[in-house]
């Protein structure tokens, strides 16, 4: 599925958070969006996913859907958004409940998602009994259960420790290797963006405008190789150069609030 964003502007009353965003996300592409705090990254994701209405501009999608796709554009949330009163499997089941699926297929979707995330043994556990990484895996299993055409990931690893982040990045790489799901990945972490994305969009400080789109030439599954490090370091330096001054300004602005 392709995502087309044209001349998108969003305001919260007098505050313009996004201004004139034009963006195309190709089928199967992973596009990371980075930028300083408050630049409208999450708003852009919300608009792309249809849960925030834009002030002006257009967002559209086109292209084929995977077999059995129940929710073409699916979110993975920073705070996991799990229902604390439901078990792991019931959290996954929640997003299937309003679809008229045969019981066997419903079970199969839940089991497949949970097994892929290594959570089948924990299916009866409550979210509070799981670590942060496992909770996010439930969030991923829930997303997989609807067989999405596009994933919108809102800083999915920012609430996790460094080791868990590494493990989950491997999970995402595995997911994209297998499913080729288009993804819009919002993060403030350059290393995540460089590890996972095909292209990186750098947004300016408020109002968020596209400053530059940087392509990471190295194929995703070779980025851990020593031979790739020089290129990645170069791209990282470029991204940081684009972000640094604005990140500092955003930081000072937050400190004054």
């Amino acid at each position, binding site marked *: 599925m392709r995502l087309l964003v044209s001349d998108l502007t969003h305001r919260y009353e007098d505050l313009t958070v996004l201004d004139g965003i034009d963006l195309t996300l190709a089928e199967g592409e992973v596009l990371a969006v980075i930028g300083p705090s408050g630049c409208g990254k999450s708003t852009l994701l919300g608009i792309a996913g249809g*849960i925030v209405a834009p002030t002006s501009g257009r967002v559209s999608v086109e292209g084929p859907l995977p077999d059995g796709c*129940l929710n073409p554009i699916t979110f993975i*949330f920073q705070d996991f*958004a799990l229902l604390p009163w439901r078990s792991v499997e019931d959290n996954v089941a929640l997003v299937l*409940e*309003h679809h008229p699926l045969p019981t066997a297929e419903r079970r199969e979707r839940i089991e497949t998602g949970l097994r892929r995330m290594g959570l089948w043994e924990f299916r009866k556990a409550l979210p509070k009994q799981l670590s942060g990484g496992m909770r996010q895996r439930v969030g991923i299993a829930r997303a997989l259960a*609807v067989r999405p055409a596009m994933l919108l990931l809102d800083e999915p690893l920012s609430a996790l420790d460094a080791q868990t982040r590494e493990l989950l990045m491997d999970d995402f790489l595995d997911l994209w290797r297998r499913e080729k799901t288009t993804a819009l990945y919002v993060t403030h972490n350059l290393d995540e963006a460089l590890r996972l994305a095909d292209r990186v969009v750098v947004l300016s400080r408020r109002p968020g405008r596209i400053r530059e789109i940087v392509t990471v030439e190295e194929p995703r599954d070779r980025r851990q190789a020593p031979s790739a490090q020089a290129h990645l370091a170069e791209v990282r330096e470029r991204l940081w150069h684009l972000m640094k001054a604005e990140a500092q300004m955003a930081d000072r602005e937050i400190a004054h609030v």
Partner: protein
Amino acid sequence: MSEILRSDALPSASPSLSGPQPVRFRGGGFTVRRHPWAALAAFAVLIGLWEGASRIGLASPLFLPPPSAVGAALSVMVTDGSLWLNLKASLGRIAVGWTLGTLGGMLVGFAMGIGSLARAVGVPLVSAFFPIPKIALLPLFILWFGIGEPSKFATIGFGVFFPTVIATYSAIDSVPRNLIRMAQSFGLPWRSILRSIVLPGALPGILAGFRISSSIALILVVAAEMIGAEYGIGAFVLMAGNLMQTDTLLAGVLVLSLMGLTIGTLLSLLERRLLKWR
């Protein structure tokens, strides 16, 4: 290092440690420990002091009868059937009044929690009516519904209604919005969001409201029975007071206390059952 040297366990004049020094434990206190028998012991001591004061003549048995006399009066209440008669009347009134007030309050609270127009209309009205002492309305309810049961149901129901409205809409407000956004992003219909997210998410707040409203119901049933009832613990206590039967009066008060305790325990069990996930 400077922090360590300031510690009173170490020599203050010395700039260095002359050998291995044990680190003094400083983390004691400020922790809550369980004392399971403390409450029972406190009760036993209080009752013992009360009984002793009565027996040695420090308190007049006419104005403050000893616990043994209260126990005997309670025993008489059990054997002559007056306990069940009055308890049944009070519990029946609480059950009907509390149920009516709670159902109405939850309905209005839900409407205010999920509908902005209902909230805009409801909040000022609730704020205006909530502070009225509901027992002051009993004479009006007697005029409207007569001296019988309906006026008592109305007093209790009205008293329970407003705290339930407030507890319900506050509970709905406290349902994390990220969960609702998540459900919307997966295309869950409005009804499913209400049933699967808003209702269970609001349940802790609603149950907390039940605690308050059940206490209010207990207070109001006693007050209503004191104003106009033949049977009921409130009427029983009032009659005992009029007859200077202070032991019987205190036995009635003890029954009220046990009623409150029982209702609280039942609500705790309900919370434990319904909110296992917390």
